[in-house]
Structure formats: C-alpha cells, structure tokens
C-alpha cells in the first residue's frame, strides 16, 4: 500500500459504493426520481471502478488488499484476480442494465408509492453482496457475501407479498438458509481442522489434513455451493421460486445468484482442493444437471418457467468444464459463465417484455408477436439462438471449448458427457424454437385463449403501442390501465443493450478467451493467488 495507489487498493469500494448507495436510496424513498439517480449513479461508479480493476488484474495478475491493514492471514483480505475481476465487471454491467429496465418499468407503470420503494435499496444491497462474494479472500467473508446477497434476494423475491410470491419465498428462504447453515458448519469444521479460514492460507494447510477429513470438508462445501448454484439433485427449488418474482428481479437472480455459487465451486475446487478426487462424481452430477434440467424445460408451457429450467440445465455445462479439470476446459468454463450470465438475463428481460405485450408468458396463449413487434422478435431471437449454441454466437464458442476439454480427457465417462452436452444443446434449441413458433410465428387467433390485447391490435390495422385499446375490455389482463405504454422505450433499449453485450462476447471472443486462459492458468498454478495474499514465499 506504499507509493501510488493501484486499482486494487480501491477494491473495498466495489462493496462499499453499493451499500452507501443503498443507504442513501433508502433515505430518499419518498423521492423516486432522486432514488433512481442515486441507484443508477452508484452502480455506474462501481462499474467504472471494477473495469479499472479488471484492467489492472489483466496486466499485473492477482492482487490482494488487506482490510484495516491486518497482517494476512488474520485479517479480512479481498483478492482481485482475472477471474474475480471479470465476474465483477460482467455482473455489475448486467445489474446496471436490469436496473435501468426496472426503472423504465416503474416509470411507465407509475407505481412509485407503496412497498416498491424498497426495491432500489434492496437491489443495491444485492449487488454489494455479489461483489463481496466475488472478492472474498476468506471463506467466512464469502459466507457473509452470500448472506448479504441472499437477504436482499429474499426481499426482492417477495416484493408486494402476493400469495404466489410468499409461497415461492418460503421455499426459497428455507432452502437458502439450510444451505447457508451447511456452509457455516463446513467453515467451522475447516477452522477446527486447520485453524484458519483464509483461502490462500488454507490452500497450503488443507493438504496436511487427513484425507478422510479433507473429503468430508470438500463434500460439505460442494453440497452447500451446489444448492446455491442449483446443481441437479439440489436444484428443485429454483424453477419453483424464480418465475413468480417481477421480471427484472427474476432476470438478475437468474444471471447472478446461481453464478455466485458456480464461482465459489470453481474457486474452492481449484484453490482449496486441487486434484481430481471428486471429478467423477462431479461429471455424473453435471450430466444429470444438464439432461434433467432440459427435459424439465421441454415440459413447460410457461416461458419463464422454461427459462428457469434451462438455467439449471446450463449450470451443468459449467460443472462439466470444472470436472474435466484441464486448463482449456477451465478457461472455457470461465468464458461460458460470463456468456451465460448475459444471455440468460437478456432472455428473462425479453420474457418480461413479452408479458407486457401479450398479457402472459404462457406460450400456449401467445401468438403474432413477430408481426406485432418485430423489435421484440429480434430481441428474443438473438439471445435464444445464443443460448441454443448456434454458431457463430458465444454460446457455441463456449460449448466448443468445453467439448474440446471433454475430448482431450477421452475417458468413457467424458464421451457420455459429451453426448449429453450435445443432446442438451439440441434440446435447448428445440425448447426455444417452440417458443418462437408459438409466441412469435403463429397467428394470435390460433393461440389458446389469447389475451384480447393480441387480437385487438391485430384487427385494428396498425399495431397498438399503449394499453388504451384494452382499457374497457374486462377479459384482458391489462384492462383499465389507460394509455400506459406497452413496451416503454427504456425497457426495450436496456434489453437491447444487454443483447448487444451478448453479441459483443462473440465479437471480442479472442481477447476474452485470452483473458479466460490467463485466469485459468493462474488458478491452476495457485501460487499467484497465494502469493498475492500471503506475500512471496508464504503459504505453500
């Protein structure tokens, strides 16, 4: 911390800025306009700071900052390496777009009073928790990060307290609390076994622990993170709880929360428990996650629920890459995580737009959307193809990298997994193609019980832009809404920005893969991370 301050010295601000913003936004809850400015401003500042950190990490590798100047491994350390910096930038960029989308929705609908005023502060706290989890250099701080983001997510998931949301909320909260308890038990046991919770310190000390004990600790951590990442036998809670929340909330949950779990899995797998002790088990789990998830997606009629199932299914790809264990596969996993955050979030935002335009997200009841709103069709089509892994999109590049990792491994199980991954990819394509065929391509008249909103607009010559047409139609979900805009510009633009970001992943795939490669190398070597925290020659 001598001499010129570097970007990493400001790492705590990535957590502090959103928290301070949340405090300010909470004070300003009677002034919606000021609240919006504060929230968006805080996230913009955080994003700028994190981009700077990413550049710095890219140039200088892993760096750490000790909170309060305590000597490691006793104090709290925040570590910025390529992987965590990349995750920070992607997650904050996505949160910012979703926030603008949510603001657009709020402004259009005029629901500025009531409990919604808690949305902005809770949202910022969520971002702070995510940042803290990505930066955490010790297990307990990781736990605190998880708890911050989970507590904020409880509030966001149950916004408004309707029957469906409370029901979903109970499942979600209880499952999350149980997984957190498991994580905490694991931390307690790790402390008993090694006398430290600092990850860099643990990397050296865990190797001396009895292999049986190591196994217990390893499995406990994996299960705790597996619940959060929604890995197959532990993913039952996700499709039940996510779709009930408002569209922007579901979008940001889908993008970030499970990925924090995946991040924690990757971090512990590479740093704390290197070697391939549990790789076979992880591979089986990855296969089941992919296949069961996508079969669930195919059974759904509701677009949001279908997306939730594809979300759990594609977590399987990340676990697959992690279990393969090679450098190339790890790099592809990192790229895939970044890709998936962006694409999955954009699809959930599109689902929100579809709901506004068509009155429902049940694809059986939708139709004509491509004709009624070509922009929406494009916004759906690009990320949907991306998710399905059609070349040249980033989904294809990421999957290609993962599959190559599997081919390099060449064991029979790896081949089974390859087949499963390919089948999942095709089935994903089938699932999104079905949505396209029904909601966008066919005529609304052919849909089952379509909302009058779709029909009135189709009959009236031009296309409707507000809810005025269905104002007096009691059968419509949106009757009595006056001339509220159907697709507010802010919402469409922010969704478009995220879709473009997804395309940018493809365009800049070269440098991104370089970055991912470098990140994977540093993680496999482990020493850069350990030395960044403990100083040269410390630890292992």
């Amino acid at each position, binding site marked *: 911390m001598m001499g010129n301050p570097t970007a990493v010295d400001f790492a705590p601000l990535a957590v502090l800025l959103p928290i301070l913003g949340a405090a300010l936004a909470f004070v300003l809850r009677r002034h919606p306009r000021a609240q919006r400015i504060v929230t968006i401003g805080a996230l913009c500042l955080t994003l700028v700071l994190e981009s700077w950190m990413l550049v710095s990490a890219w140039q200088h590798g892993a760096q750490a900052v000790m909170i309060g100047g305590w000597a490691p491994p006793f104090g709290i350390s925040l570590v910025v390496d390529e992987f965590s910096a990349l995750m920070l930038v992607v997650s904050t960029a996505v949160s910012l777009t979703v926030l603008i989308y949510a603001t657009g929705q709020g402004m259009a609908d005029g629901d500025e009073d009531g409990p919604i005023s808690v949305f902005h502060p809770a949202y910022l706290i969520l971002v702070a928790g995510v940042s803290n989890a990505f930066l955490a250099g010790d297990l307990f701080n990781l736990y605190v990060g998880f708890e911050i983001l989970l507590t904020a997510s409880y509030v966001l998931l149950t916004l408004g307290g309707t029957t469906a949301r409370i029901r979903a909320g109970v499942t979600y*909260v209880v499952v999350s609390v149980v997984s957190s308890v498991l994580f905490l038990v694991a931390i307690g046991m790790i402390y008993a076994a090694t006398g430290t919770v600092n990850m860099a310190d643990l990397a050296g000390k865990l190797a001396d622990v009895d292999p049986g004990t190591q196994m217990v600790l390893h499995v406990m951590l994996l299960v705790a993170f597996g619940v959060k990442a929604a890995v197959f036998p532990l993913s039952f809670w996700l499709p039940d709880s996510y779709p009930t929340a408002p569209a922007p909330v579901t979008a940001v949950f889908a993008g970030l929360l499970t990925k924090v779990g995946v991040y924690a899995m990757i971090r512990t797998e590479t740093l704390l428990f290197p070697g391939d002790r549990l790789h076979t088990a992880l591979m089986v789990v990855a296969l089941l996650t992919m296949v069961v998830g996508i079969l669930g997606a195919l059974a759904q009629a509701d677009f949001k629920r279908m997306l939730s199932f594809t979300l759990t299914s594609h977590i399987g790809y990340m676990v697959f890459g992690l279990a393969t264990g090679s450098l190339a596969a790890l790099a592809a996993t990192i790229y895939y995580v970044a890709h998936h955050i962006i694409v999955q979030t954009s699809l959930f935002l599109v689902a929100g737009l579809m709901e506004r335009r068509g009155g429902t997200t049940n694809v059986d009841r939708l139709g004509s959307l491509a004709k009624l709103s070509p922009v929406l069709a494009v916004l759906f089509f690009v990320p949907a193809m991306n998710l399905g892994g059609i070349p040249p999109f980033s989904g294809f590049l990421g999957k290609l990298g993962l599959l190559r990792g599997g081919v390099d491994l060449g064991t029979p199980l790896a081949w089974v997994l390859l087949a499963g991954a390919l089948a999942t990819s095709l089935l994903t394509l089938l699932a999104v193609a079905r949505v396209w065929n029904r909601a966008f391509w066919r005529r609304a008249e052919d849909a089952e019980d379509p909302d009058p909103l779709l029909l009135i607009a189709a009959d009236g010559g031009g296309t409707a832009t507000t809810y005025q047409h269905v104002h007096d139609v009691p059968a419509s979900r949106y009757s009595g809404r006056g001339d509220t805009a159907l697709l507010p510009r802010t919402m469409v633009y922010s969704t478009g920005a995220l879709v473009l970001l997804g395309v940018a992943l493809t365009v800049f795939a070269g440098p991104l893969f370089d970055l991912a490669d470098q990140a994977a190398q540093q993680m496999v070597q482990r020493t850069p991370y350990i030395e960044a925290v403990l100083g040269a020659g410390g630890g292992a």
Partner: protein
Amino acid sequence: MSVNVTLLVVMGVLFATGIYLLLERSLTRVLLGIILVGNGVNLLILAAGGPEGLAPIYSAGTPPGEYADPLPQALILTAIVITFAVTAFLLAMIYRSWVIARRDELTDDLEDRRVAEQDTFDFEEDSEVAVETSEFPEDADDDGALAREGVSRQQAAAREAGERLANDFRQASSEESAGTSNDQRNRKAR
C-alpha cells in the same frame, strides 16, 4: 486438545431437534428449526475454537497460549446477527402467509397442480391415496366418520385432494363425451 462433552451433546441435541422441526410442514416449526440449527452451528464454531482461555484482551506478560482464540467468537457474533435478520424476515413472511391463507402451512404449488391435471396424469394410478369411487362424495368428506375410522387429518386431506381430482376428472370426461374440446378443459383448469 480436550473435548468439552457438554458442548458437543448440546450441539447434537440442537441439530437433531432443529432438523426434525425443519422437516415439518408447519412454517412456525420450520422457523423454530432454523433457529435451533443456527444455534447448533454457533456452538460448533465455538467448539472448533479450541480450549477456553483468558479473554483475548492484550495485557503485557501473559503468554499467548493462555488467551482464548478470538476469531471463532467474531465469527459467531456475525452468524448470530445474520440468523437474527433471517429470523425476523421469516417471521414477517410467515405472518404474511397467515394473513393471506389463514394457514400456518406451505400451500400447494399451482403449477404442480396444473401438471397433475394434464392428460398424462392418471388419477387412479398416480394418486397416492386410493380414490374413493363412491357416488356419495359427502361420505368421504365427513371428518367425523374418518376420525371414527382412526384416519389421521393429513390422510383425510390427501383423500380430499384425491377426491377433488376425481371429481374434476369425472366432470371433464363427461364434458368431453358431450363434445367439449380438450382446449376448453385446459382453460377451465387455468
């Protein structure tokens, strides 16, 4: 390192009762379970901190080994605060659930019920409780009669659900035979 048996036994009891309560359907009991398990974890971390010792406040001349390990205590404090916040939130949510449904229980998932009402669901084969095919459904609904038969309340509820499905099915199939299309049935279910 000596082991404090009392601590371990208390911890075990907390975990056991907590997990038992977590598995209940009643939300208040689930909350109590979470509180107990949370405290069990706190004891576990305390036990992980090693033997007891002096308060970890520096005084010159005391050898470092005499102090208690302060880190687990800091961790426990943090964990207590977090459990506190989550408990408060859960209480609010349970209260809200009570206000809405007047039931201290997790309600059924609508989507699950919808899937159950799809054609592939054969209510006779798939239902866990044998479906009462009596022409007089009032008999099956009579709680007093069931109580006399010694059937528990949950079973009665399950039975009632099965009965409801059976009724729906009967109604639907009669509609179908009257020429009603599949679509309308689905819409009705919605």
